[in-house]
């Protein structure tokens, strides 16, 4: 307990500047206005663009958003419900749909929990310690972002395929990685690896190591330091990373498509099933699954906004 209260002061110091910074941004122009005489020209608000231009910019942004974001979403839901609510739910409860939903949840659970561990370890190593090759490690973490997902999938085919590097050994021991759950999980982990680490590294770097040093000097063990100092400090950032990681894990198509083998009721995830159903002229069923993915995206967006607000507010609330 004493440990916590000791730390509280330092956290408050770091975080306290945020509200004042906001005030500073708002206050100077209002002061300026008071000083200025009220002429006709100054009636036009000098802080922003003229009204027509403002209107134009906002309208352009809105049109763009409508065409590229809102319209497709509406189409997805409209197509999904085009033959009524019953057809929608029948489509979602088909064995093939249930199996795809189950597989997608399973893959997301595996890849998010593993990436949570890897991500925290990687971010911890990078932000709290100095070592040779650190920049190289950061580049490596970012690699999945820059590699095409198809390549990410093919890498695993080359490694674990029957003609691949480990293929003969795996075949001899009757271990199935490719075209089965492990392969899909591996490809998804690879593609979603950067999310947690990327969300944590800047946060942990900003926080520095003083708090941990203080904890250690007060006699806390390594694990105690992690669970009682580091983890509470990064928890919103961590959740943010997990959220994005999960969204990508459930939505990944390219890499999974390469390693899936497309076995019905077995290795088709939701995104793969959307394509399959579409190609079978089952448009309602296809868009019904797509609407689940769209809802996932919407929920992710809402939770992301909440988390971002939490991150901005700092962790004062959670620290006490």
């Amino acid at each position, binding site marked *: 307990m004493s440990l916590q209260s000791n730390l509280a002061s330092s956290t408050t110091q770091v975080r306290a500047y945020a509200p004042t910074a906001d005030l500073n941004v708002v206050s100077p122009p209002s002061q300026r206005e008071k000083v200025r005489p009220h002429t006709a020209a100054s009636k036009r608000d000098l802080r922003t663009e003229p009204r027509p231009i403002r209107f134009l910019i906002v309208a352009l942004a809105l049109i763009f958003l409508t065409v590229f974001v809102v319209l497709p979403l509406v189409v997805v839901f409209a197509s999904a419900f085009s033959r009524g609510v019953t057809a929608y739910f029948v489509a979602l409860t088909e*064995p093939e749909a*249930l*199996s795809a*939903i*189950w*597989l997608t*949840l*399973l893959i997301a659970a595996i890849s998010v929990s593993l990436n949570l561990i890897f991500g925290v370890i990687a971010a911890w190593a990078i932000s709290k310690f100095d070592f040779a090759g650190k920049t190289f490690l950061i580049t490596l973490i970012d690699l999945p972002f820059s590699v095409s997902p198809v390549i990410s999938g093919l890498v695993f*085919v080359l490694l*674990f*395929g*029957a*003609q*691949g590097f480990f*293929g003969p050994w*795996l*075949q001899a021991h*009757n271990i*199935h990685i*490719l*075209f089965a759950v492990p392969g899909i999980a591996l490809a998804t982990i690879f593609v979603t690896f950067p999310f947690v680490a990327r969300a944590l590294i800047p946060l942990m770097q900003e926080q520095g190591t003083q708090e941990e040093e203080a904890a250690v000097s007060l006699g806390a063990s390594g694990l105690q330091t992690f669970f009682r100092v580091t983890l509470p400090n990064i928890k919103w950032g961590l959740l943010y990373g997990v959220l994005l990681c999960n969204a990508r894990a459930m939505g990944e198509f390219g890499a999974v498509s390469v390693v899936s*083998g*497309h*076995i*019905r*009721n*077995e290795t088709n995830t939701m995104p793969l099933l959307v394509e*399959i159903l*579409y*190609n*079978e*002229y089952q448009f309602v069923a296809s868009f019904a699954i797509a609407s689940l993915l769209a809802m996932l995206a919407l929920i992710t967006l809402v939770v992301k906004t909440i988390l971002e607000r939490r991150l901005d507010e700092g962790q004062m609330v959670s620290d006490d």
Partner: protein
Amino acid sequence: MIRRILPLVAGLLWAGSAFAADYSLLNVSYDPTRELYADFNKAFAAAYQKETGKTVEIKQSHGGSGSQARAVIDGLQADVVTLALAYDVDAVAAKGLIAPDWQKRLPQNAAPYTSTIVFLVRKGNPKGIKDWDDLIKPGVAVITPNPKTSGGARWNYLAAWGYAQKKFGSADKAKKFVADLYQNVPVLDTGARGSTVTFVERGVGDVLLAWENEAFLAQREFGKDKFEIVSPPLSILAEPPLAIVDAVADKKGTRAIAEAYLKYWYTREGQEIAARNSYRPRDPEIAKEYEKSFAKVELFTIDDVFGGWTKAQKEHFAEGGIFDQIYKN
């Protein structure tokens, strides 16, 4: 909260692990056979259970014929492959997974159902397309997939070539004809189903070169008032072959049931399922029954005109082959 989630999770678990059967087969097939094998698998499972009392679950995987063969080579545990053309099965056989004499192990070149290449046109046939010649007329947009990736597209290409060679009598003129034809192709999709969607759903093109069964299916799905099938007087006999993947079946101990599965195609029931799904049945009796469903088309085989798949593949579709030459210009 947990009490509410648990039944849901249990339900999903059940859905994931349901239908545990005595035997399980994986059939790796090509794109347009989805509906065909949905019917056939159900019928076979019922027949097998009636005969032996054992239940069998058949899992399906569909995709472009070439990429499906690749997946089996890379370790997809298929007990049987049912692909679009013999060359793709040969590719799997070349890796030692299937015995080299696979095409002799089942009757009729191991192809119990056949198909051909026809034209699907828009209602009223506004461009007046009747024969292969009409496809090279200026202003006719032809939709066909990429023969590099799609089995169906290779049949399309070879059908056009075979027609031209028979009509003009020389390979050079056939090459010119096929080159002109591909001048009229605005987009090459990677698979047969992709091309159908391009033509039917997106409304691109005047004529779709398609598997006969695929053309019938599109007509069934979207209505006869939207599309018409035009069968040219001369086309190719497409023989999509079946084979047991010996390496996998022997390892899994499923050879006997895999054999029973493929042989079921040669029964009356199997042949009828093929005919109902607009594949041409081999059995003369069933063929006679469904005579009216299929247009009379003079059919030539790939062996007649091209000397077999290996030769055709090498000459036409390999890197730097004739297709590469004509599509570049």
